[in-house]
């Protein structure tokens, strides 16, 4: 187990190293000069040059790459070009919105998906099952930003139950914060819940044909009881995989939803930073997101190996 973990760790570090080069190179070739963007139409070339020097942009790419990576290793992500505040602070602030939003959406999706998936599986083949699966198909097909727009029209503009967006900060207490995240979380959760219920159902359905289930049924348990007592645990592996994937997706993939609801989260930070050519922010945030995804994958892999020793061989 330890050897397996070490091997995976080495490949994780390798992936991070490669990713840092890819990210840096990609951002290096983006046309557009942050200094020129900041100074606008009337700025003289020498003014732009002065600002470039002030921002440390006049160093060569290799020097800047080394600078960036060594900084990151020490937890220093540099200073934002446009906002002139440390990137780590900005990311920290934004993470307090993106992380709760991702968790909120994930919680919603799990709360919906588990019972729905179990219900569908226990009624396999009936009209209930077909109906539920039809609904989940619809849920998968709805673009989340479109769903978000509809939610805003109904619940913010017409009913006024929620504000149309924005974030009051956690300073005012837990409730206002959660309230502001509710519509975005619902918009994000709908497709995820649909996918998760489908995975849940099919994992359980696979279990139904296993011998131990037949035994359980033979002991007189109903299909539903047998599912909950015996199959659920075994069905958790595929479900956990999807949850892991969804978490990383939600953390990085909320860009559009954050824009619809103008939430100052990581996604919107990066969207703005690209537009403003605040490249150091783009680099660092992409790197953090990539790190998060690789880390989650790593942990999920380890969890598998712990559950199922056969997987360690590969």
């Amino acid at each position: 187990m330890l050897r397996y973990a070490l091997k995976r760790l080495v490949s994780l570090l390798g992936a991070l190293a490669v990713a840092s080069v890819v990210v840096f190179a990609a951002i290096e070739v983006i046309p557009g000069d942050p200094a020129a963007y900041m100074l606008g139409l009337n700025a003289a070339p020498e003014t732009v040059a002065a600002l470039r020097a002030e921002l440390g942009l006049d160093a060569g790419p290799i020097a800047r790459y080394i600078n960036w990576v060594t900084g990151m290793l020490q937890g220093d992500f540099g200073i934002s070009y446009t906002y002139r505040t440390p990137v780590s602070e900005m990311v920290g602030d934004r993470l307090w919105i993106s992380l709760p939003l991702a968790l909120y959406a994930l919680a919603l999706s799990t709360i919906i998906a588990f019972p729905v998936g179990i219900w569908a599986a226990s009624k396999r083949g009936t009209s209930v099952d077909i109906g539920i699966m039809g609904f989940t198909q619809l849920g998968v097909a709805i673009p989340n930003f479109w769903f978000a727009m509809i939610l805003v029209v109904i619940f913010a503009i017409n009913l006024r139950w929620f504000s149309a967006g924005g974030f009051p900060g956690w300073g005012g207490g837990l409730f206002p914060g959660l309230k502001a995240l509710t519509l975005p979380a619902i918009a994000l959760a709908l497709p995820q819940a649909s996918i998760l219920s489908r995975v849940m159902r099919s994992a359980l359905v696979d279990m139904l044909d296993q011998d131990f289930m037949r035994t359980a049924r033979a002991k007189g348990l109903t299909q539903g009881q047998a599912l909950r007592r015996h199959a659920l645990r075994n069905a958790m592996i595929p479900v956990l995989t999807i949850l892991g994937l969804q978490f990383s997706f939600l953390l990085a993939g909320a860009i559009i939803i954050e824009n619809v609801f103008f939430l100052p989260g990581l996604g919107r930070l990066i969207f703005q930073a690209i537009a403003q050519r605040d490249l150091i922010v783009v680099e660092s945030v992409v790197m953090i997101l990539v790190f998060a995804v690789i880390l989650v994958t790593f942990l999920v892999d380890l969890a598998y190996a712990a559950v199922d020793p056969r997987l360690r061989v590969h």
Partner: protein
Amino acid sequence: MKTLTFTAAMMLGASVAAAQQTELTLGLQLEPPHLDPTGAAAAAIDEVVYANVYEGLTRFAADGSVRPALAESWDISDDGMSYTFRLRSGVTFHDGAEFTAEDVKFSLERTTAEDSTNAQKALFEGIESVNAIDDTTVEITLTEPDGALLFNLAWGDAVIIDESDVETLKQAPVGTGPFKFSNWVQGDSIELVANDAYWGEPAKLTKATFKFISDPTAAFAALMAGDVDAFPVFPAPENLPQFDADPRFNVIVGSTEGETILSTNNQNGPLADKRVRQAIAHAIDRQAIIDGAMFGYGTPIGTHFAPHNPAYVDLTGLTPHDPEKAKALLAEAGFADGFTTTLKLPPPSYARRGGEIIAAQLRNVGIQTEISNLEWAQWLEQVFRGKDFGLTIVSHTEPMDIGIYARPDYYFQYDDPVVRAMMSGLASMSVPEDRTAVLQAVQRRISEEYVNGYLFQLAKTGVADVRIKGLWENSPTQANDLTEVYWEE
């Protein structure tokens, strides 16, 4: 489904209104990157701090005129080479430091210094020296007469700061204005509070919050829900009729300094031919663009000058919408079968929507356009710096910027000795009538040369609670001066 709930909630909202309010929440579309107007071009900075937090020697008033600010009065030497400013006494910065002539000297010299990062450095390049004669007197000497100096000193980029605050201005601005910086929740809002020690008439508001809402739909919802009290530049003109019909709101339509033009690369293929540019001018239907892109808000212009300026000449009649004439001109220029060019559009909706309409109008006379929607950074790189474009749409929001037609290296690359000669004479003129005559001649010249397609003057379309008084109606500079703003009882 919408109207019913709207009206119901409206009545609720109205009855809640109570006692005298002295706090204001203002919605802005863009959050400033930082709060030092002398270190970036972002208009969003001035929209928060101009006249509220920082002041310069002179300032723009709501009608666009230049008024004394930190300078009480001034004398101009007969040769126009030297300006002597008498400063107000008893003025302090928000941190308690006293405002003196040394601060003026420091601020202006910082602007013109070698390593200056001031976005408008070019405006002040004619300043040879700044001398503090005594605590309340400053003399500025120029290398050549500059009739626009007082005007230029009113820009947000020329505000006076204290040397000891330079390093911290970006996050915690310190000025001499009627409001003090209080708090900044990044990504959300900035808070200002009244400055009790202000030298002039104190502000009527005690607190002003600027809330940043970039998405037009969200801005609409925020106003409707009462999350913000006013949106001085409301980003979606299509929503204005709804506000207009709602008794809770005032729709404030004013003018800006933004000449919105179909910028034409005068050195690019067929566009270098004056007849082709004239054809484009006749192919354009200004009213259709104003209706389609701005939902009717905007004033047609026929040259690069603000219609509310006394020196404006209405030249829209020179190029009426006439597709047949456009086709004839194209044929005369050898493009009977039309040609293809690029149309590069920056993000604002006037450009994106206007671009689609213009593309359709040009298609009608045989000119095909390849549209690409660009971000500002890409636009700056490709269009403004790289001059790699055929056509683009942009609103030139700098006040009195007709001088760009005398710069052959400017992005639309118009090289005309006639205009250059006219403009170079302007700087040394101090008689207003002479200046007006020159400005009008330049307006005619660029219009008759069809340098760019002149579309419309951008309107300032604001929405505010009906009880708010004293907001600027027009936008002589991009600012939200809150000095005079109050809630009507």
